[in-house]
């Protein structure tokens, strides 16, 4: 795919971003959010967000309902724009390019930044067609290449063995957990750099949740993952860094261990110890 141009830009961007707030400044940045504000109509949903998200790490975003964590996630692939009244100021740099700029095509952005949703949402099509959907809309027609992408993506999401004999069957015949892994596979099929996950296990049973968590650990070798979760144990288990959102602001952003063992802010401590939220 056309990632090489973007990669070059990243190298250039690296030298600029020495102001990484947390450890390991040598890590490559994938998203650099500067003074992001967002309004839904008159509601100020995100306030002065500054966040640097590293490549090939799992970044968890936690916080109580309505704190803006899902909104922030959806800003990263501009899905918030589906809400007609949305308005933003500030900047999000994706590998050196300003994605909130209207000249940055959302279709292009979403090819690099894939998304997995809260509720498994396969298309009412066959398993094969679900995975082939992304490559097809990007113009791939060759049956052999599609076959390869489908197998590779399903293997990548550790669901190949469960579905390889029923690729032509409707995806809605799968269990909830399988559907969610299918949706992850569908995202892998567009060969993104980043995978956004919006509470991907909140509709799943514990066993399926564990499978997704294991999968996230595997995926971070090749992808940058940003995951919104209500489940603090999950954030502690699977993420490298954690951002705590409250009332549209980032209260604290640090290495996950630090957030959970030695938070700097009193509000973070109250939240992770279950005193509110």
């Amino acid at each position, binding site marked *: 795919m056309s990632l090489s141009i973007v990669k070059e830009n990243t190298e250039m961007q690296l030298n600029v971003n020495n102001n990484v707030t947390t450890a390991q400044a040598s890590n490559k940045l994938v998203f650099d959010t500067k003074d992001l504000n967002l309004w839904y109509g008159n509601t100020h949903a995100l306030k002065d967000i500054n966040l640097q998200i590293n490549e090939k790490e799992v970044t968890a975003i936690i916080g109580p309902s309505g704190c803006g964590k899902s909104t922030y996630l959806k800003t990263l692939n501009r*899905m918030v724009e589906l809400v007609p009244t949305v308005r933003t100021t500030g900047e999000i740099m994706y590998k050196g390019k300003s994605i909130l700029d209207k000249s940055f095509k959302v*279709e292009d952005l979403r090819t690099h930044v894939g998304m997995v*949703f809260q509720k498994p949402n396969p298309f*009412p099509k066959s398993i094969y067609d679900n995975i082939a959907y*992304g490559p097809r*809309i990007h113009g791939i027609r060759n049956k052999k290449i599609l076959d390869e992408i489908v197998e590779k993506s399903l293997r990548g999401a550790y669901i190949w063995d469960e579905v390889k004999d029923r690729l032509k069957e409707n995806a809605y015949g799968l269990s909830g957990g399988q559907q969610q892994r299918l949706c992850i596979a569908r*995202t892998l099929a567009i060969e993104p750099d980043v995978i956004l996950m919006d509470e991907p296990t909140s509709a799943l049973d514990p066993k399926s949740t564990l499978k997704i968590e294991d999968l996230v650990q595997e995926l971070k070798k090749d992808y940058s993952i940003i995951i919104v979760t209500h489940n603090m144990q999950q954030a502690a288990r699977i993420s490298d860094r954690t951002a705590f959102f409250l009332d549209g602001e980032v209260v604290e952003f640090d290495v996950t261990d630090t957030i959970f063992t030695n938070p700097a802010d009193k509000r973070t401590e109250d939240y992770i110890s279950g005193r509110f939220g």
Partner: protein
Amino acid sequence: MKYIDVNQVSKRMNGRIAKNNILKSIFLAATVFGLIVLAILIYRVIVDSVGWIDWDFLTGRLSTAAERAGIMGAILGTLWMMLVVAPVTLILGIGTAIYLELYAKKGKLQSIIQTNISNLAGVPSIVYGILGLTIFVRAMDMGNIILAGGLTLSLLILPIVIVAAQEAIRAVPSFLSEASYGMGATKWQTIKNVILPAALPGILTGAILALSRAIGETAPLTVIGIPALIIPFPEGIFDKFTALPMQIYYWTLDSSLVAEYANLAAATIVVLLVLLFVLNSAAIFIRNKFQQRF
């Protein structure tokens, strides 16, 4: 202390159950009333038509002599007209619905258009006939040909199709289109691959009902001016024509002069009902083929 008194509840119980049963009877009576009227109608029509529907009647040409009259011309006229109405209505109707639901900015103008479309669905069909006469027959100088009749009926049922298609599009769960947008699909790709396939059964249901109405419509055609007797079969959409409901209308009108015309009208009604049934079955078959499970 309890707010709900068990004794009071059991005292009222019989009254509540009785009320339920009374209403059930009323609803049943409403259904039965419609069914009985329909049954009488169909019975009368079939009794009157017995002995009149034969091969010569189905394939013959129109004639003033009742025993020689055939309705092939009217059948062909109706079919040709549907060949105009169906594509014109579906393309314009679905196109409008897609624009209003998915592309148009939600605002004052959009809501004015929306209200007017809903109002248009309630305009009497004869008014559409006058519109068709003014625009297609006279201003565009088509004359009273199949194309003019078909376009007039399209206008008549367009509001119904648009509203039904809008409802169907709105009913497509947003998580499906979000999944598509999330992979970098454009709006059109999302519409074509996700929204339309999911909305199609609903759209077709509306279209079937609307087309059935168009097939039986008489008033707009009388205004356009369909000749009472036309011998040659129509061979294309630019020919003059008659249609099944027109024949029913004329024969019923003249049954005081020639008693057998009443039988011809009854026979034509049976043919129209059978045709309607066949076309509906075909449409329902197509719809079920596209039905998706989710």
